[in-house]
């Protein structure tokens, strides 16, 4: 536990600012022997929906240049099984790490229901609300696409849960700062960005998209510049608000240097996603690298660097 990496955010203490991203670390169990999540700032679990979801037909993933596309279709064990079988194991193994449960719904009501149940469960430190989920009632446009539905989901959930609430935004919008503002006004305690970017790869021999569903979400190093830009922009927006909230930076982080890019752009916490597939101990390497960097640069606490790239 390096004191230089200790961070306070969301009213919680994090032993370090490095989290693992939803959907890239399962429920913490499969990687536990290779990379125990108890070493992390927090585990963010795979998105949970009310019902168990089988997910999309395969192929679901494919590699692209410095990135990958996925169309998993929110396959997950469902709320009930999560609470009964996964959460207790997680709580038992968390150690000093925080537990953040990522939730979604296909309607505002489902969002509220899942969030209020998960948010009230023992061992849950915070919720992350996945606004990249499609809104079935509004023609499958995702909730994160317009300020109104962001407001509805966030304020609806906020009214029902006591734990801190993180709104996870998607970058696939004309003005991410406007959505960030809407989420904060509606009561979000923090903002996670970015989720994946819609993309497609075509298998030219088969003359159709490689991924069965056609479109997939792009993640990995390829999207890092987009994520850093979003964090930078939203941090500027936060500075102009009465009650700015911390930002969780996500997208293409594989090393301490990448994490520092996000931190200096304005992130208080970061999440490692796709990189865990490339190297199961990627998150540990980021943590160790950050400690070393602080050591070499005389940084007493990593929080000093938050937003550093904005100063002139």
């Amino acid at each position: 536990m390096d004191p230089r990496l200790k961070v306070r955010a969301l009213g919680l203490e994090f032993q370090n600012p490095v989290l693992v991203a939803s959907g890239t670390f399962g429920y913490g169990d499969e990687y536990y022997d290779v990379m125990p999540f108890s070493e992390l700032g927090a585990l963010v679990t795979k998105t949970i929906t009310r019902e168990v979801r089988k997910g999309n037909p395969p192929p679901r993933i494919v590699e692209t240049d410095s990135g990958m596309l996925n169309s998993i279709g929110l396959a997950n064990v469902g709320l009930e099984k999560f609470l009964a079988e996964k959460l207790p194991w997680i709580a038992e193994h968390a150690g000093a790490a925080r537990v953040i449960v990522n939730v979604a719904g296909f309607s505002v009501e489902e969002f509220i229901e899942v969030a209020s149940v998960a948010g009230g469960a023992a061992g849950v430190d915070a919720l992350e609300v996945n606004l990249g989920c499609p809104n079935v009632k509004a023609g499958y446009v995702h909730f994160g696409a317009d300020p109104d539905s962001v407001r509805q989901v966030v304020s609806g959930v906020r009214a029902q849960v006591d734990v801190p609430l993180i709104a996870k935004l998607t970058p696939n919008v004309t003005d991410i700062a406007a959505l960030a503002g809407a989420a904060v006004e509606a009561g979000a305690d923090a903002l996670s960005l970015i989720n994946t970017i819609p993309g497609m790869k075509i298998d030219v021999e088969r003359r159709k998209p490689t991924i069965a569903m056609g479109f997939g979400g792009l993640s990995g190093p390829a999207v890092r510049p987009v994520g850093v830009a979003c964090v930078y922009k939203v941090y500027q927006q936060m500075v102009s608000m009465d009650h700015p909230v911390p930002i969780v930076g996500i997208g293409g982080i594989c090393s301490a240097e990448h994490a520092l890019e996000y931190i200096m752009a304005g992130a208080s916490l970061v999440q490692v996603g796709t990189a865990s597939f490339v190297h199961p101990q990627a998150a540990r390497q980021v943590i160790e690298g950050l400690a070393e960097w602080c050591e070499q640069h005389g940084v007493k606490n990593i929080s000093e660097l938050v937003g550093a790239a904005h100063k002139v």
Partner: protein
Amino acid sequence: MKPSFEWVRVKAVERLADKTYLLGYERPDSARSAAPGQFCMISPPEGKSSFFLPRPFSYFRTDGRARVDILFRTFGKATRLMASLRPGERIGEFGPLGNSFTMPGRAEHAILLGGGIGLPPMAMLAGRLAGAGVARIDLIYGELEGARVVKLAATLPENVRLHVATEDGVVGHRGRVTEIFAPMFAKCDRPPAVYACGPNPMMAAVASMITPEAVEFYQASCEQYMACGRGICQGCVIPVWNGDETVYMRCCTEGPVFNGFEVAWTHV
């Protein structure tokens, strides 16, 4: 043995046939515990590759102590880079991963079908079956072109009968592995254990030629794009029949070896 990640040094890369190579390295953890059917994820030397995700490869041969050999064929970025590796370069190995083949209970007759680059797990399995005292082992190995045929005879235990089929007829039987399998299966007195690894149409064809009653079991080793190799990303699912419906099983965790009668071949 739990899987683990390690950087290891390449010992040798050898060209065995057209587009087909052997990659050798030392990793005691894998060499000691890898079972036939299991695989590992291979990562490129750090900073030296334009590809990104690790790639899955079956264990082909281990010496039980330290040495591991992977048999691979060049397709795209990863395999082309692997073919150009030189002794001393570092690659990452994450393994052993996945389930493995079941040994036959009655230990009488096993028929193995390896199509193209489905060969490696079949070759490893043949060795284990021989070691386990299975009386008769037929390994049917098929390739599109004779130029791609890996010369296996010297490396297989004596009692493994190797049958080669090539579609261009340059080596062995001209035609497909199923054309060797059909008459062989017809002549079986007792239900053999059947194993296959190869293109999906081949494994589906085998499933359609046999019935669960006529074999001890039929195990098929499947392929799917993989990212994590460890059950996390849910990227590698294979549709498996569950009554009239299909369920998705993770090829990297519940597989790669599946009950060949249960895989929904029409959906893969």
